[in-house]
């Protein structure tokens, strides 16, 4: 992989740091009046999900990480692993372990398309689509006529997540959910 110097650091660049692949989130250029420049960098360790803050001398470089984000369809889980399939027609499948699936486990829906992050061809992270349409499998009965503002209640969704929904929502309805905030958007 190529090496990247601090002045090439920008959000989204994937680099190796302390043996882990990282995604650069922010790069702040710091320089005293006439002196040496530094880069204060925020990176997300893609293996652990932790955010690191590191300082580099201007001109230092890091090795690029062989990290790719690919669109894949969720197929099934065998209990230990979660299986995804490339959407490029190759039917090639990747198994994702518990650590890599993380919190996304509660946002899984068969045939929906996820972004799977591969490092050296191993799946290390999965991110859900921003919006998912999911069925309500459990909630208190809906309040008739209450379609306006006011109040919310918990609803358990088919993927396993629980979100706050308006009082008028009933079991069996399909809802549009923002997976980034875990919030109800609308009826689907």
């Amino acid at each position, binding site marked *: 992989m190529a090496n990247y110097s601090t*002045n090439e650091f920008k959000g989204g660049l994937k680099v190796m740091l302390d043996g882990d692949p990282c995604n650069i989130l922010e790069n*702040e*250029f*710091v*320089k*005293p*009046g*006439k*002196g*040496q*420049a*530094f880069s204060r960098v925020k990176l997300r360790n893609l293996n652990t999900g932790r955010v690191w*803050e*590191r*300082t*580099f*001398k*201007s*001109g230092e470089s890091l090795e690029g990480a062989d990290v790719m984000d690919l669109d894949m369809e969720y197929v099934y889980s065998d209990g230990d692993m979660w299986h995804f399939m490339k959407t490029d027609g190759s039917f090639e499948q990747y198994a994702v372990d518990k650590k890599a699936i993380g919190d996304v486990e509660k946002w899984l829906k068969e045939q929906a398309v996820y972004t799977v992050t591969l490092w050296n061809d191993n799946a290390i992270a999965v991110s859900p689509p921003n919006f998912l349409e999911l069925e309500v499998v459990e909630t208190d009965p809906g309040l008739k006529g209450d379609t306006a503002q006011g109040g919310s209640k918990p609803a358990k969704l088919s993927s396993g997540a629980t979100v706050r929904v308006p009082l008028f929502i009933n079991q069996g309805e399909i809802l549009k959910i923002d997976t980034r905030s875990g919030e109800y958007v609308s009826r689907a």
Partner: protein
Amino acid sequence: MTDIRGADDWQPTATIETLRARAQLMAKIRAFFAARDVLEVETPILGHGGSTDPHLDSLALEAITPDGHERLWLQTSPEFHMKRLLAVGSGPIFQLARSFRDGEVGRRHNIEFTMLEWYRPGLSLAGLIDECDALIRHVLPIDPGPLRQRRYRDLFRETLDVDPFTTSLAILRQRGAEIGGLSMTDADRDGCLDLLMSFAIEPLLGREGIDVVVDYPASQAALARKHRDPEDGAEVASRFEIYLHGIELANGYDELTDAAEQAVRFADDNRQRQALGKPTVDIDHRLVAALESGMPPASGVALGVDRLIQLALMKDSIAEVMAFPTPRC
């Protein structure tokens, strides 16, 4: 989203309202100097020589001139040309000059920026600090609070419990590594001091008023004269920097007028550049010649206008006071 570059970022990062306020502040700056009989000058952005400063990276370009294909440098500040005017007796002069520093882009930096630079023949460094203070108060809409002078050395002692001149390099490296979170094992003395200054001291400066840092280490003199620290005779640079709200606003010198010393510093700078693995920069021989013919003793200061406007308009980043910062130019 679209694949055509620029389709989604062609718009200015400053609002038209901000640009109008900016224009008014620029007019205020010009009025300040007009009232004090300081002559506004315009000098070239391009020069046959560039800044050799080891920590500034100059941009260069190829031009076809009457002498054929030549390499010309974009100025990192208008200093060299302005000093050549001083050497022929221009008297006090100021300039609002576009300046360029390669690689510098951030919340407070842009590769191309506006520098306010002015020179006062016969005025002491203390006199120039007073004038900077007056200008800043003239431009800012609210009182920034009192001006305090802080010695570089005292700031390090008070904030970090180290003496920038006498503490061992090993300890400076250790403190730098702790504070910066990076390996400092191969850092030199100035590298450690720069890191400690930027990360531990600068953010604290200018919080209760205008802080003026004076008596920098002699190794950071750049184009300033040097004098002895009365405390123990340590050599210090006759230089100041002005901070407000943690932002470095201005950098002033009791200007070096000794041609031989200037030539030595240029050569030293280029040697340092080579040691850092950076390209050398063509030396401005015309500046050396001007100093040889005799430049009057003068104090001079460079002030980042975009940052001053950023503070005056209470904006979070320099891009908000520029129509098109480098990423959008």
